[in-house]
């Protein structure tokens, strides 16, 4: 919950460096600046949405519908762009965020007002949102040549060597780092997840906090939807299927407690980056695609175990060092 990266995150960072080093022994080109930028570009979207997921998991909930919301938003703006190419890009971006906020707020309302458990709610909306993708695209897809160039090129366009995609991800990281660790509402989010009765007793509005978490996550996801279809220059009905689990994995690898109440933005950023490296490197060192999924799963589990062990050790070290600053 601190702003500065904690010891735990630092250790995880070292672990990642170590992994990169090992991979580059086998595949020196892995360390290429270009390849490195590729990895960053590949993980930018995951990082953003995982931060949204983090917020929800911290409150004690979960959002399984992020992949479907992402696809629905992506498809909507792609169709819009195809049929009304004259609409300026910043309007498109605003629309994608708005649709995302809307989809997220539906989850938020169901969880906070109708009191439906988050897993059930978002499993339901996942199907609904995915179903709607099929409905609006009528089974077809929007391909690269049907998009305007401005639309398609936006994520890639770069300034000082940094692509818009990375730039936006950085913006989200900084915004939510500040939001979760330095603001009142951020603190309340951790409070609700840590013990909702105690939070209620100090006058925190549980419904408001829950609603807010799902809605904000939706907003990020909507933006990610636009970035996704633009980057891959395709909007399909299957876009991003299974992406919801990646976001959860990024959180868990990054040390977020799945029962709520704890987890940091830095941890999640590292978690997403780690997953990005794993995916990328498996392709680069020519692991058979048949094996890739199983190995990914294995490595992620391994990281979680390491992380848990490190966390215990860190607490020991921390406690030993802490003393009253009288």
């Amino acid at each position, binding site marked *: *919950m601190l702003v500065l990266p904690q010891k735990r995150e630092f250790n995880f960072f070292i672990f990642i460096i170590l992994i990169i080093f090992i991979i580059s022994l086998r595949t020196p080109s892995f360390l290429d600046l270009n390849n490195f930028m590729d990895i960053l570009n590949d993980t930018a979207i995951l990082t953003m949405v995982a931060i949204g997921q983090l917020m929800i998991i911290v409150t004690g909930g979960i959002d399984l519908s992020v992949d479907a919301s992402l696809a629905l938003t992506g498809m909507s703006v792609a169709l819009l762009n195809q049929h009304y190419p004259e609409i300026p890009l910043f309007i498109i971006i605003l629309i994608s965020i708005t649709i995302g906020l809307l989809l997220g707020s539906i989850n938020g309302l169901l969880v906070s007002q109708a009191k439906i458990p988050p897993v059930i709610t978002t499993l339901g909306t996942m199907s609904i949102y995915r179903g709607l993708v099929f409905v609006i695209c009528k089974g077809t897809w929007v391909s690269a040549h049907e998009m305007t160039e401005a639309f398609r090129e936006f994520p890639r366009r770069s300034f000082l060597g940094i692509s818009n995609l990375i730039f936006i991800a950085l913006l989200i990281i900084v915004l939510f780092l500040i939001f979760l660790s*330095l*603001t*009142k*509402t*951020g*603190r*309340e989010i*951790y*409070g609700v997840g*840590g*013990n909702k*009765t*105690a*939070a*209620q*007793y*100090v*006058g*925190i*509005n549980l419904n408001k906090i829950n609603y807010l978490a799902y809605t904000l996550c939706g907003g990020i996801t909507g933006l990610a939807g636009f970035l996704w279809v633009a980057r891959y220059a395709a909007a399909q009905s299957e876009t991003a299927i299974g992406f919801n689990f990646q976001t959860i994995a990024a959180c868990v690898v990054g040390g977020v*407690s799945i029962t709520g*109440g*704890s987890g940091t933005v830095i941890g999640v950023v590292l978690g997403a980056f780690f997953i990005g490296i794993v995916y990328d490197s498996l392709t680069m060192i020519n692991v058979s695609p048949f094996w890739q999924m199983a190995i990914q799963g294995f490595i992620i589990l391994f990281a979680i175990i390491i992380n848990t062990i490190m966390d215990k050790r860190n*607490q*020991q*070290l*921390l*406690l*030993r060092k*802490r*003393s*009253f*600053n009288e």
Partner: protein
Amino acid sequence: MNNCILEMKGIRKYFYGVKALEGVDFKIKTGEVHALIGENGAGKSTLVKILAGVYQPNAGTIIFNHKSVQFLSPQISQQAGISAIHQEATMFPELSVTENIFIGHHIRNKSNGLLSWKEMKDKTQALLNRLELDIHPDTKVKNLSVAQRHMVEVAKALSLNAKIVIMDEPTSALTIKEVEYLYKIIRKLKSENKAVIFISHKFEEIFEIADYFTVLRDGKYIGEGKMAEVTMDEIIQMVIGRNLEHRYPQIEAEQGNTILKVKNLTRIGFFKDISFELHQGEILGFFGLVGAGRTEVMQTIFGIEALTSGEVFINGKKVNIANPAEAMNYGLAYIPEDRQLQGTILKMNIKENVTLSIINKISRHFFLDKEKELKITEQYGKQIEIKASSWQQLVEDLSGGNQQKVVLAKWIATKPRILIMDEPTKGIDVATKATVHNIISELAKQGIAIILVSSELPEILGMSNNIIVMHEGAITTKFTRDKANSENIIKAAIGSILS
């Protein structure tokens, strides 16, 4: 023949460098009730947790039944014949009483190996009867009151047929009647030649029930002896290392205007027709047995539960408080009785817990002011003597009494005009209790109106200007301080209405 059933020698335990125990000796005989005494954070719970196999000691030996043993897990300790009622709830709220009692040592049907629920239920019923508890074996634990849960824990310990029964502050949630039950049970265990380790901060209880005592201070062994051969003052001297002058402050605060007026407050099924007035600078005591409805009344006033009918006036104006946030806006604060469930956020540190209730005050616009956060925590943390290695320590890792202090600090920090305290000194040691009592009087002197809900008669008598006694959801009697004595209060609490 030496009937010493357990001997622990030179026990050391460090939590990541925090010294909880530094070479503690402890021994207990069969048929003995042994009081383990010490301040909050002295290491009592840690010692019994080592015995119960929850923690492993860093050094020291345990001789049980004349053999050197290691309790590597709670199961091993239980099988050896040690059963523990821990300070923290260890029940499964969603399971029934029977399931809770037999979890970990289910009874199986000999012929087919399936669980034999009928037998377990019968045994549970028998245990409940033995404890004279009016609880159905199928009731889910979440539907029981705090006191009933404790009694179920006792039943569980009995079901294990243990040689040593550990009770870590078993009475902190019980009132007179239940405590009497508990004494009866403890005497019974004693007559069956079992050893009982009894932890409590209430010295009257210790003198009533224990035969022998061991005192710990700051994780160190201080001394032991027969209860019959010491005085209360000597024990207190050992516990805190100095003499304690604990007289109830008994201040005659000047009572000001009526600040809170409650008229015919009713919540069907919980309490009815509650009316009273509270003045600035007044300490109004609420006494009653567990289940009398005091907590429910307070929760309703604070907007946690909805009322069925009745009116609440603050400063003469009728108010409708729908939730705690509104209550806090009217200057109310409510210190809940269950610190783990309602009071603290265990995963947050002390600082974050203390300031969560005043989060608006420690934030400028939208942002938290970390410096102010630390300053306020320091101010109240020191005032109320929270013992921790730092303000960043997770509340989860504090001793039970210190968790309670965090809750007190958190609510006093809101600077309320009306402060409702529900069992504020539950689980708090003698020295701190005196501090808390002084703080309460100090607040009253400043004109804050205080409602003190307590099941401790001396506390109610010593602190209150006026006393209200409740029984089964209704007010039976109101006393002014000069008219009240323990006799007529208890009579009112058990339901015989006085004129």
